């Protein structure tokens, strides 16, 4: 009898232990996913911050550039650089036949002409001389140099030919291949060529959309929250507004995209693919988040503050505007930043309003067509070229970096400025 009891007790203790273990296991799994995730993104993405350059001797032959004696700055700008660019690439292998010369040309990006031109404009005295110029390597060679490209594939299955690899290896041996920080990833707009693609255009698109979103959503949401929390009578209508807000916060984001398409583009005829429309769409999504945050922090202001102000003869409006609202601002602001961070990561609604269009210029205003960072991730993830994989991960790292900074900022505001009542 006693033994039976002990067994039962042991069994119950074991069950207790097991249950606890399940809990620990669940937490462990969740954190494991997070770690794998971050590891994967970083391990594929870090190499995108390096860019491979070929150092090629270029002879600035005035005759080939069609330059007269003593050219002016304008002449230099209009000169023909294609021929010397082509010649300097062909000179890498003096015995190359015509096909091979073509392959040599494709070892660098199609910006090579521009890169040579920039060199000469910086130093016009180079005319007639030879200088080593840094040229952006093609994305396939870039991947080869970073070790991401399997070299042992049969030749017809890779985009780099054996001949290109041979010349490339010679250059590596001579120390004519260099890896440097990839500044153009941040300063170039999107491009079809992976080695030239940058995030400048989508970054500006994101900034403009978020600014438009902030300018619309913040004032409207704060005013609405003040009304609902401080002035609204308790009746059916305000209940209806509340139900609406809570429900809007849980409506799938793609539905807001349909709203943007069906109302903003089709009815109001706003320009397609622009951060203006994107920002308005995002602001409708962010509105409930900010309203809920602002109401919560208004509610947290103790009634004694209001009563004190009212007792001093302030009107209801003065009490609210001079005391309650300023005291609730830290909570509201951190809620706003979190809402904006959500909006910054949103993709689906922006795709529907056409912000996936290929944009290879940096937008200068919210009325220029643009993409946004998450959409850029989508566009690059869908393209087949190998060079884009690391770009996607790098773009994700930039996006996550911004989200982390925004969330930290929200935390700081909350902890530094929020008054603790009680």
């Amino acid at each position, binding site marked *: 009898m006693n033994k039976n009891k002990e067994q039962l007790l042991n069994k*119950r203790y074991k*069950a*207790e232990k*097991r*249950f606890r273990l*399940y*809990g620990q*296991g*669940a*937490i462990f*799994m*969740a*954190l494991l*996913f*997070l770690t794998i*995730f971050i590891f994967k*993104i970083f391990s*594929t993405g870090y190499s995108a911050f390096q860019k491979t350059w070929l150092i090629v001797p270029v002879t600035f032959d005035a005759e080939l550039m069609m330059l007269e004696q003593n050219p002016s700055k304008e002449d230099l700008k209009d000169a023909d650089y294609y021929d010397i660019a082509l010649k300097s690439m062909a000179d890498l292998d003096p015995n190359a036949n015509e096909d091979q010369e073509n392959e040599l040309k494709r070892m660098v990006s199609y910006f090579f002409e521009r890169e040579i031109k920039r060199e000469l404009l910086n130093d016009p005295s180079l005319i007639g001389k030879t200088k080593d110029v840094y040229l952006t390597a093609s994305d396939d060679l870039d991947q080869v140099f970073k070790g991401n490209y399997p070299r042992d594939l049969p030749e017809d299955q890779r985009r780099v030919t054996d001949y290109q690899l041979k010349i490339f290896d010679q250059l590596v041996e001579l120390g004519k291949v260099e890896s440097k920080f990839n500044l153009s990833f941040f300063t170039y707009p999107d491009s079809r060529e992976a080695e030239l693609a940058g995030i400048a255009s989508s970054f500006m698109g994101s900034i403009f959309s978020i600014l438009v979103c902030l300018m619309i959503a913040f004032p*409207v*949401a704060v*005013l*609405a929250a003040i*009304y*609902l929390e401080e002035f609204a009578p308790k009746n059916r209508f305000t209940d209806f*507004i509340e*139900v*609406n807000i*809570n*429900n*809007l916060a*849980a*409506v*799938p984001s*793609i*539905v807001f995209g*349909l*709203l943007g*398409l*069906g*109302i903003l583009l*089709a009815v109001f005829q706003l320009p397609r693919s622009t951060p203006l429309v994107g920002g308005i769409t995002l602001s*409708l999504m962010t509105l409930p988040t900010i309203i809920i945050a602002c109401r919560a922090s208004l509610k947290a202001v103790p009634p004694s503050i209001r009563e004190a102000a009212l007792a001093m003869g302030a*009107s209801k*409006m003065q009490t609210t505007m001079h005391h309650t609202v300023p005291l609730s601002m830290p909570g509201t602001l951190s809620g706003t930043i979190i809402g904006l*961070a959500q909006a910054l*990561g949103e*993709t*689906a609604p922006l795709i*529907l309003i056409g912000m*996936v269009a290929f944009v290879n210029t940096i937008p200068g205003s919210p009325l220029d067509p643009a993409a946004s960072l998450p959409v850029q*991730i*989508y566009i690059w*993830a*869908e393209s087949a070229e190998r060079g884009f994989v690391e770009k*996607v*991960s790098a773009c994700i790292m930039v*996006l*996550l970096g911004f*989200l982390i900074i925004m*969330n930290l900022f929200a935390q700081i505001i909350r902890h530094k400025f929020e008054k603790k009542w009680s």
Partner: protein
Amino acid sequence: MNLILFTFIVLLGFTSYYFGRRKAYTIQSTNKRLTALPQFYGYYLAIWCAIPAFIIFSLWAIFEPTIVKLLILSDYSNQGYLDDELNLIYEKTKALSRGQFTGEITPFIEASAEKYLSLRSIAQSSKAVIVLSIIIASVAYAYKKISSNSRTREPVEKFLKAVLFTASLAAILTTVGIVFSLIFQTIDFFKVIPLFDFVFGTHWYPAKAFVRDSSEALDPTMYSDTFGAVPIFAGTFFIAFIAMCVAIPIGLMSGIYLAEYASVKVRQYAKPLIEILAGIPTVVYGFFAALTVGPFLKEIGNSMGLDVSAESALAAGGVMGIMIIPFISSLSDDVITSVPQSLRDGSYAMGATKSETIKKVIFPAALPGIVGSILLGVSRAIGETMIVVMASGLAANLTLNPLESTSTITAQIVVILIGDQAFGDPKTQAAFALGMSLFLVTLCLNIVALRVVKKYREKYE
């Protein structure tokens, strides 16, 4: 032009504020008592400046285009043009005046474009003159009117309150906007495709509708067997089901552990770390699913002799499940912590172990709240777009094999609407019909879930 006018009006507003306050001070200096603080006199005048400006601007925005159009088209009346042709002429005129016209320019259109431009400039300058004169008149009138015993605080506060109230209508307007943007296209869609075919048809092949030559008249028989949404609905719920299979056990158990077992320190670090999962943009999950999870599952499957598609429902659903873990864990954590301590104490006093207390006392007590959180998770899984677009297939298969690819409502909307779309095409309308069904389903889920959670909160507060 509008911007300059706007700046000018804002400047006028500030000036009138200044004058109002100065008048209040002069009244004060004559030793008369004011009925409100001086700045209210200033606000009062500024409002007298803002309201007429706003009214005139909106009237202009509403009527100017129509009037201009009427004047332009009056040249073409009595020439036997149809309404559609007149509209086309007007559009051409506008395009030409903007310098965006690419077709053949007829002298008629050129003349109209010139007339259009001159009409527009007349309209703009008359707007400026009218706005400025009315503002100045109204401010002057109000300035004359205010005296020591005139009420200024009450109107100002009433105005502010009206502004606050208008802002609170934004939420309703958004909902109305959603319904409006969906409903007309949906109705048009069901005019061509019978509702029955949409709800019970098992073939979804919208690309077929696209092949149609635009000059052909709409022929309903063409679309039979094209817009049967059953595979889409089934795929949506199937992927959501897979996601919940991952999210519910992990999310619920971590919620329970955080609420009942974890020490303060573990809770302090683990909770925000898990919530990071909720802050990661979905497009990033999509990329992760497509690049890592999909090929990984395919490799495992191949090594076991299974035929796994690289874009399997399992990959999309599994990654979606990871995304939903934090929603369930933090909501159920909240719900469990709000169960009163007395219930726990009672159970411990009867000799129950901690896990027995959780399983037999706390869990049943918290069940409504937990169900609510799961329903919210389901609603999120159904509405999730990017993971499915990137990691699962785009062809709608009617299958229950998690290793094959399926498609969802959201993915189909994106597939149909990406790129240029022609309104009035049944394919585009189909996307809106899908959006409508998505909106309705998530609406029901949200309302039920929010209600359950609210009821539960009331019970223990």
